[in-house]
């Protein structure tokens, strides 16, 4: 096999592979992108999102109550609030007044059912999206986070 042919083969196979990968990616992106909304974003939307999304904000003080293995709580950005629930063991850093990012779906009754609650490893940490969202709603002063 001549050098030129070999190179052609390599190029053809690479292009084929890249094409296949691009196909896989486009196909996957369509239904696996998870958008991030704050309670204010949700209130401003004309139609509620149908797919899974991430809801971020603070766990409202005094809103947490448990019912069997299910925990009900309210996510707020101090502007708007969304009632939410989660069944399972919550991450150790889930606490009232702390930032939270939950992934799940919004029911027709406006209640958010979380499938997953993201845990942060550090209690001084504020999820970046939550900090941004609070900053937008004017409820965040830089320097609020301990670090």
């Amino acid at each position: 096999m001549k050098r030129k042919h070999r190179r052609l083969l390599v190029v053809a196979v690479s292009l084929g592979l890249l094409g296949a990968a691009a196909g896989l990616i486009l196909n996957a992106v369509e239904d696996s992108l998870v958008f991030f909304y704050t309670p204010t974003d949700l209130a401003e939307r004309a139609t509620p999102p149908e797919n899974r999304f991430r809801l971020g904000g603070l766990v409202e003080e005094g809103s947490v109550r448990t019912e069997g293995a299910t925990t009900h709580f309210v996510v707020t950005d101090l502007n708007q609030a969304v009632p939410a629930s989660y069944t399972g063991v919550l991450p150790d850093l889930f606490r009232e007044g702390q930032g939270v990012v939950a992934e799940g779906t919004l029911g027709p009754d406006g209640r958010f059912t979380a499938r997953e609650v993201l845990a942060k490893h550090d209690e001084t940490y504020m999820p970046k999206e939550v900090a941004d969202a609070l900053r937008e709603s004017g409820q965040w002063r830089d320097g609020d986070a301990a670090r």
Partner: protein
Amino acid sequence: MIAEIGQYVLIAAFVIAAVQSVVPLWGAARGDIGLMAVGGRAAIAQAAALLIAFAALTHGFVTSDFSLAVVFQNSHSLKPMLYKVSGVWGNHEGSMLLWVLVLALFSAAVAIFGRNLPPTLKARVLAIQAMIGVAFLAFIIFTSNPFARLSPAPPDGTGLNPLLQDPGLAFHPPLLYLGYVGFSMAFSFAIAALIEGRVDAAWGRWVRPWTLAAWTFLTGGIALGSWWAYYELGWGGWWFWDPVENASFIPWLFGTALLHSSIVVEKRDALKSWTILLAILTFSMSLLGTFLVRSGILTSVHAFATDPERGVFILAILAVAIGGALTLFAVRAPGMKGGGLFAPASREGALVANNMLLTVAAATVLLGTLYPLILEALSGGQTRVSVGPPFFNATFGPIMVPLVLLVAVGPLLAWKRGNLGAAAHKLIPAAIAAVATIVATFLAVPDGPALAPFAMGLAAWLGVGTLAEWSSRIRLFSSPPADALRRLSGLPRAASGMTLAHLGLAVMIVGITGSSAWRAELVTTLVPGETAEGAGYAVTLQAVTEGRGPNYSFERGTLLIPEDGAPVTTLITERRFFPVANQTTTEAGIHTTLLADLYGVIGERGRTPETANAWTVRFFVNPLVPWIWMGALLMSLGGLLSLSDRRHRVGAPRRAAGAATHTAPAAAE
């Protein structure tokens, strides 16, 4: 006082690195042996200075010197000694110091063990290493000084993040950095070769052991981190396709490709410019990973408090390193002539295919990791998204299938022109094993995901195929046993290493498939003494007791799980409360058998009066999870075994014809 010594030697290391990055290069350009020799001495001095700096910081942690800001923020006098020591790198400043220390140790290793390298190549490699060192030392000194003092000194520290107070995580960062930063060697060799304008088989032989060592460490580091996440986070999962995990996985994928392509350079003098490019990309991905982790720019489940301004500094280093290296590559690479023609069905051909698949896979992971950043930048911060496991499972998984099929075939093909028919003949047992496994798995677990039996078949194909190659190499079945044994002892360790690593991959696929396909879960609340049924088991919360550890208090839950015909399995799980950090962590109770992990955690106590005596209990059956760690262990052992092959250390250090300028003054032979 000791901290001031640390501060002083840190600045000294910066100055030494600056000298080391200029003088040897200049010496190499002028052919001045004396100037080139500065590189080696500077490298050893720099490593010594950083060792002292690191020791000084360790001293600060061990003696709980809270006048140091880092110690105050990350340590506490009541903390056990192991975590005082691991606290040194359990924070931003200390971990960056460890980063440059590892970098300097690798440079010093070149200075000490690289006696048989041509002096110009050695000088240039050391200079490039020093340039990286200068950049990161400047980063440490100007943005994250570990020796910053607090005045007045606080009486006690705020404690290390309790999640990090764990033996698994104490050793995870050093291993990970040995891998991450180890790839700087391949990078420096690549840049040095571009400056010299020559890449040959000898170059391949020099680069390979460094790449192999880095790869082995990185494999161990990632596995250890994953294991930690599994038992410490209490989520029952071991890999989340999280940005911080991907940041270590992308360099691993590129490094794996580099490991294989450097074999082709060494044995066949082909694929040179591609290997150079891979070396640059691999280390660039390590830098990118450092940036992603340290800047906190992506929301990660593993994120720690970070400072975005530091990210800009690393981003600048990243831009200069990648931009500079790729520019040099663009200028110099076209002049490199590849040797060694080969047919598509040959060992080279298989390795080229391996490289294509691995880089495409790495690119998809990279795209998925950076996509949220790109989209947020394009939309002006309005659209915030995250890319989760479904994306990676749908893209990465399918690319791995042809790769795994190929891994069994490649080693059976000869260099230059392989015989596909003969290879196919040797793979008949593998094909039979694969089909048998698919059928058996389908019969055993008929209601699981449809793809799982095929994944198990893939693992059987790879495992049996690898063993078939190994047995044909030592003629296990075609010669008397004594003969085969003699061949076995004569087998090059690099070959045995490959066999082990490929077997490790097969074992790991079994674990990954089992744990993702057939996991069962039970979530409930139980009062002590109560029993719940689910996930195929009856789980009894026997008791919850309270107690105190060295620097925490705990609630210890005892779960009883009776199995048919076996003694009752007891899972001990703890919720630990660390008053200093005001934080709770979970210790999972895990009962491991070869077939499955029984995994239980207790959650919070109920909040209302009626439920005050009940705990949330989460119980998982994680099938085959131990196989993941066994697979990773086999891969690392394979790397170590191959590394111990003496052919990597001696032989072929001298360059082939035309190397008249390379009469090394201190050649090993």
